[in-house]
């Protein structure tokens, strides 16, 4: 009995730590989405599809053109950042005065476009980078280096965004706009430019997430559907546009998925996370950290 408990606890600990590692990447994704929501007041339903495109970019650069991973990664981030800016310029900007729900649905159309573009261009095969990182054994627990690396890189990315937002003029302007959209234009801030920059940063974060996720998962055109919904739920749970709330919610969700997966199938982990989300909507409808109105 005692032996059983020991093993059990080791697995539990392993699942908890893996949950934290997963949470890092989810937090990164949520940060990008929150940034865009907070500043432009738009939800990019197609956010996970941008990540998917980034993953394909990594795959082709590393596998086909033999570019080193560390050179391909910045290129991918740049590419997805440009995609983000383009998305804003082509789809969101003409709709800025339309009701918010139309903007959301338009990005839903972009989701279709990106997904089927990937299907048409790359086929529906599962592809992976072919990089096998070693597994780190710590006591009786196993962690993959890929996850550890992703976690660290995600943290670095988030700190970089934080510094950008607090230490630079543009970052200050972005935060100001997220507080009051109308006034900032009167204060001489070029809102169009700020929106474009924000979209590019949001895209860049998706690109960074793509570089990290491609280490752990295979790429296929529908890969976005496997973590896209979770990202939205995290943002809503944390309160849309609330960076710290999103950060905490990402870890809460990752733990639920990881622990749920330990006791049952991975799908049940997701079901639990979804159910938890709906229960939380009863208790804290405006997000985890929302002040009571």
């Amino acid at each position, binding site marked *: 009995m005692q032996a059983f408990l020991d093993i059990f606890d080791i697995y539990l600990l392993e699942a908890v730590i893996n949950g934290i590692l997963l949470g890092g990447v989810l937090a990164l994704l949520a940060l990008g989405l929150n940034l865009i929501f907070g500043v432009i007041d738009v939800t990019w339903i197609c956010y996970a599809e941008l990540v998917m495109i980034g993953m394909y970019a990594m795959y082709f650069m590393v596998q086909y053109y033999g570019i080193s991973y560390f050179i391909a990664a910045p290129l991918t981030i740049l590419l997805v950042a440009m995609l983000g800016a383009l998305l804003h310029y082509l789809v969101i900007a003409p709709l800025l005065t*339309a009701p918010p729900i139309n903007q959301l649905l338009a990005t839903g159309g972009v989701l279709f476009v990106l997904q089927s573009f990937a299907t048409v261009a790359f086929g529906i095969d599962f592809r992976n980078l072919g990089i096998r990182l070693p597994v780190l054994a710590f006591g009786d627990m196993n962690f993959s280096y890929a996850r550890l690396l992703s976690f660290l890189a995600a943290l670095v990315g988030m700190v970089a965004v934080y510094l950008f937002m607090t230490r630079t003029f543009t970052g200050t302007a972005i935060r100001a706009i997220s507080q009051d959209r109308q006034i900032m234009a009167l204060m001489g801030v070029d809102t169009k430019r700020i929106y474009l920059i924000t979209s590019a940063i949001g895209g860049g974060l998706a690109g960074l997430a793509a570089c990290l996720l491609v280490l752990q998962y295979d790429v296929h055109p529908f890969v976005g559907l496997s973590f896209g919904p979770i990202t*939205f*739920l995290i943002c809503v749970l944390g309160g849309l546009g609330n960076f710290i709330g999103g950060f905490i919610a990402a870890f809460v969700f990752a733990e639920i998925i990881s622990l749920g997966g330990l006791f049952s199938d991975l799908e049940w982990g*997701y079901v639990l996370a979804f159910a938890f*989300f709906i229960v939380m909507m009863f208790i804290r409808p405006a997000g985890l950290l929302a002040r009571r109105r």
Partner: protein
Amino acid sequence: MTGQGRLVAWGIGLAALITLPFVYRDPYHLHILVLILIWSFAYTSWSMMGRFGLVSLGHGGFMGIGAYVTALLWNHLGVSPWIGIPVSMVAAGMLALIVGYPCFRFRITGHYFVLVTLALSGIVLQVITATRDYTGGSLGYTPNRAPGNKLLALQFDDKTTWYLIALAVWLGGIVVWHLVDRSMSRYALEAISEDEDAAAAAGVNVTAEKLKITLISAVMTALAGAIYCQYQMFITPDTVSGIAVSLQMVFAAIVGGLFVSLGPTVGAVITILLAETLRIGFGTKAVGWDNLVYGVLLVLFIIFLPKGILGSVLDRLKPQRKVPRAHEQKAVQIARPGT
């Protein structure tokens, strides 16, 4: 058009639709027509909510429940779809109430509402996949062929029968649309979609009105799912539930026009004909192309033609109404939290 003229036009149109399968018997074209009618019904159900600014991405979930509950009851318990379909509709209705009540009670609107309902269709999809011992998971599920009475099992090999069933169901949907359109609830919901606080102050029971329309919409969507399952005799989680199906409903309804009763039907005609044309024109190479075209069209429609094809055409025909009501002018207006 006067009221009487419109009634005559409807009568002639219906008579033509009913006689069609007896005159024209090409099975492929009938199949397409049945699909169009079933999906039109589903899209109409979605628009019942969507036209009042309640944009739901959870309808894939309701449709999945309709299809899977009916099929599971038939296969595992031998319950006839005649009982199974109402049961599945009740199940979808309960789920709609469970999710809808807190949403409406706590004023979850706009982005939040969309994302909560998105979670709903996610849950249904994952539950269907996770319970693969019963539902067959992502490989799909087939209701057992009935050994004896076809009518009891609601399984017909004959396309004409299915055409008439689908036509009746679709017509039912249109009738419900008109009933809602002429009820007090419609005015209440229009007021809510423009300004929830003002509507509440004017004595509209916001939560109850929203719940009512959500319930109607969810139950109808479940029926669409069940009918689709009985007709196709094969369902997979991806064809009847999940986010893709939900987005497809939104897309078709918007393209057709969500504020007019036949708009979703026009949307279904366009999307299904488009998909079929691409499929025949390009064969297997067309995998993905239909969605590519859908996506581009959806973006273009939302930017340039938010009232949809039929809505815009009807507007052109009716120049006398100079000032469209505010909620139609702006497509879907939603009260944002914090404003």
